[in-house]
């Protein structure tokens, strides 16, 4: 085509396009409305689902996916009590060493096979190889066997107070039940297929990492009769399809919610909330009543924080409100003060020993720092700038430590790099670190066993590697104790020691809001976003 003719053609088509734009757009809009009778719940999850095996990884997003697809033997209810879920019930022998668990009727995997005691044994064994609480349970387990098709017998070598709490653990890694053929997979490798017995079926063909995950209602699921309560009770699937649309950009995700393209936005950015709230058809609620704990972790291997007085100095130098305003902004979404290492609102809440955290005292902090023999050396704070919650904590800590005369350097990096860097055991000047920020869901921090940031077993402890025999003894005593009142007393003693030893600074308790359109009904209050019980009108 000669250029002139081409130019003419372009002109002509531009004219036609201009004239027909409103008609075309109307046509496009009509075509964009799906003609679909099935009910679909469209969700923007907090992260992309990259791996689908909830035993292989501890990622919260994989745990949430696990709850849709898999079921659990026991589950935690809103009173933080463990209830039977797949189990019809259980019996404990008089010496407290034998647990006999019976499966309820009607349990079936998505491939049509019935759930048997063999599946349970294989699943618990694999989980016990990976999960911290599971490993502790396995250490006191003499045998775990299938007595018959529906009966599992767990025999302990010594009394253990956390058997049901372990099997009904609500957060990562959750002891989900898989078919034996999958649960026999090496715990360090991913399962090849996702077949559970939960209320929804994972549609593997439609899974596009980085884009979407699709679940379909499992018609043969038999929910319990009790009302849904946290992970316990009847898991009734009220929608035919649950679609997770991963939208990495917070502004776009908010606009998609406002435009009605998605129904539920799990973790909207706090700075965009005013815009979302301006639309009356959108509810913004804190779905997780337990919240999240901010954490500033020290490296115990190197000066200055190998000396507890330096850590105490840091504790006197900071104030929780500074952290909370920095990462959440609106006081509606955080506690004014929470001095409990095991969370406010949890069964082991206490403020024993928390004086240093309650008020800032710069002079006292300076004095403690001087006593620790701090020589002005550089303190490296890892600063993952791509995660606002972590970045804010690094900045506030840096400022507070500078105020008491520390020579602080913030090391900017992305989160993925930080997760590797914090594992480095060399000295800070050789690629190590002094402080890193993170956060934990309350569901993970509720007791001294699940809260791994208080573990003080030296080289085998969580990053930072603190060592304190008294803390370890108290944690073990807590795990062995079967009397709840005595467990509480142990926690008080433990917390007093924690505030003296300072394994980390709890920088506050905050509540992540969730936004959903008013056509979404039945959203459950729970520390994990559950998608049963929800209907879309």
């Amino acid at each position, binding site marked *: 085509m*000669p*250029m*002139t003719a081409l*130019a003419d053609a*372009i002109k002509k088509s531009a004219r036609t396009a201009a004239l027909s734009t409103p008609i*075309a*757009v109307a*046509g*496009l*809009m*009509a*075509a*964009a409305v799906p003609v679909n009778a099935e009910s679909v719940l469209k969700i923007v999850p907090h992260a*992309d689902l*990259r*791996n*689908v095996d909830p035993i*292989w*990884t*501890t990622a919260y997003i994989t745990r949430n996916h696990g709850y849709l697809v898999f079921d659990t033997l026991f589950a935690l209810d809103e009173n933080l009590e463990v209830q039977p879920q797949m189990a019809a019930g259980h019996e404990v022998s008089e010496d407290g060493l034998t647990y006999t668990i019976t499966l309820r009727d009607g349990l079936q995997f998505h491939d049509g096979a019935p759930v048997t005691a063999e599946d349970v044994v294989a699943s618990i064994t694999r989980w016990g190889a*990976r*999960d911290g609480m599971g490993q502790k349970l396995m250490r006191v387990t003499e045998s775990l066997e299938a007595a018959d098709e529906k009966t599992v017998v767990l025999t302990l070598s010594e009394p253990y107070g956390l058997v049901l709490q372990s099997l009904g653990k609500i957060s*990562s*890694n959750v002891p989900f039940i898989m078919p034996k053929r999958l649960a026999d997979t090496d715990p*360090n*490798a*991913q399962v090849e297929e996702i077949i559970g017995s939960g209320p929804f079926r994972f549609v593997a063909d439609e899974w*596009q*990492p*980085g*884009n*979407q995950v699709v679940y379909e209602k499992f018609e043969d699921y038999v929910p319990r009769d009790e009302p849904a309560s946290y992970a316990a009770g009847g898991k009734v699937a009220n929608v035919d399809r649950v679609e997770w*649309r*991963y*939208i*990495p*950009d917070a*502004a*776009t*995700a908010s*606009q*998609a919610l*406002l*435009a009605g*393209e998605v129904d539920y936005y799990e973790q909207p950015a706090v700075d965009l909330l005013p815009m979302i709230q301006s639309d009356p058809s959108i509810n913004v609620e804190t779905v997780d009543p337990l919240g999240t704990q901010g954490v500033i972790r020290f490296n115990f291997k190197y000066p200055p924080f190998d000396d507890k007085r330096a850590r105490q100095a840091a504790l006197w130098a900071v104030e929780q409100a500074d952290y909370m305003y920095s990462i959440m902004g609106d006081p509606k979404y955080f506690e004014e003060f929470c001095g409990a290492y095991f969370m406010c609102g949890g069964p082991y809440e206490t403020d024993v020993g928390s004086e240093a955290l309650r008020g800032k005292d710069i002079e006292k902090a300076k004095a403690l720092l001087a006593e620790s023999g701090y020589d002005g050396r550089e303190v490296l704070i890892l600063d993952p700038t*791509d995660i606002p919650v972590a970045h804010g904590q690094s900045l506030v800590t840096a400022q507070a430590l500078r105020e008491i005369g520390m020579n602080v350097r913030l090391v900017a*990096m*992305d*989160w*993925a*790099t930080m*997760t*590797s*860097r914090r*594992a480095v055991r060399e000295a800070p000047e050789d690629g190590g670190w002094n402080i890193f920020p*993170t956060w934990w869901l309350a569901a993970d921090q509720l007791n001294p066993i699940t809260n*791994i940031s208080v573990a003080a077993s030296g080289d*085998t402890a*969580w*990053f930072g590697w603190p060592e304190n025999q008294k803390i370890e003894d108290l944690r073990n005593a807590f795990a062995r104790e079967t009397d709840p009142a005595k467990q509480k007393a142990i926690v008080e003693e433990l917390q007093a020691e924690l505030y003296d030893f300072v394994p980390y600074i709890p920088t506050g308790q905050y509540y992540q809001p969730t936004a959903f359109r008013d056509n979404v009904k039945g959203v459950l209050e729970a520390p994990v976003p559950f998608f049963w019980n929800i209907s879309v009108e």
Partner: protein
Amino acid sequence: MYAYILRRLFATIPIMAIVAVFVFMLLHLSPGDPAVIIAGDFATEDQVDKIREQLGLNDPLYIQFGGWLINLLQGDMGQSIYSGLPVTKLIGQRVEPTLMLTLCTMIIAISLAIPLGVIAAWKVGTWIDRAVMTLAVFGFSVPVFVIGYLLILGGSRTLGWFPVQGYTSIFESVPGFLSHITLPALTLGAVYMALIARMTRATMLEVLNEDYVRTAYAKGLATRKVLVKHALKNAMVPISTTIGLGVALLIGGVVVTESVFAIPGLGRLTVDAVLRTDYPVIQGVILVFSFTYVVLNLLIDLTYVLFDPRIRY
């Protein structure tokens, strides 16, 4: 000419090999250990090591590279460390959105930018010229994501004409495809348009001062004919070079545009893979991008023949 094409295609082999080695080394020497990320906070060092072993990350680099290269030559790009899905499948899922987005952007950008550049050169010094150049400066300087947000605000939220995000395959629904691709293509096209319009104007200004253009006017030819047939055709060689080089700009912009509009394309795949150090996926995607870039530039070089008969291959 066929010999030339063959020679150029053969030349892509060493280029791709260099890219492969460079990307592999760069990734493996940069910080970030996928095994640590997978293992999570509860894992012991022993567990992390077992995962590293499972993923083959404990092998010496040359063995890892050798294994990857041998598989690559057999068309196997490996598996994502995280999802366990084959890289070829992941890339396959993402090719269409990126290809369509890039194509639509190029069509919109070229069909608007060249006429605008020609008009600006023709009306040089007038308000039309200044208006076109102001637009070009705007397109060039405003970041892609800002343009994206502005278009979402205007086109989706205020007018309600287009969806905010997502992608519909052209094979599924043509109207759905057009409604989803328009805003992203305009967003991505802004910078590209600015680049081509400026280049067109500059080259046209040069050509319009040539003797043969004066001769053409003197012959009494119509302005349109002089501009399009005599001037633009001669200006097309540098313009097509810019169009080709600009594809690199597009590839950069695709990453941002796909994130803003939540389009499941290769750009998003790259960013996600980089953020979690998913080595096989990053390597695969970069190879695909490099190959596309090399081939596209070959095609652009071949178009020179159309515009300048003096060029022979």
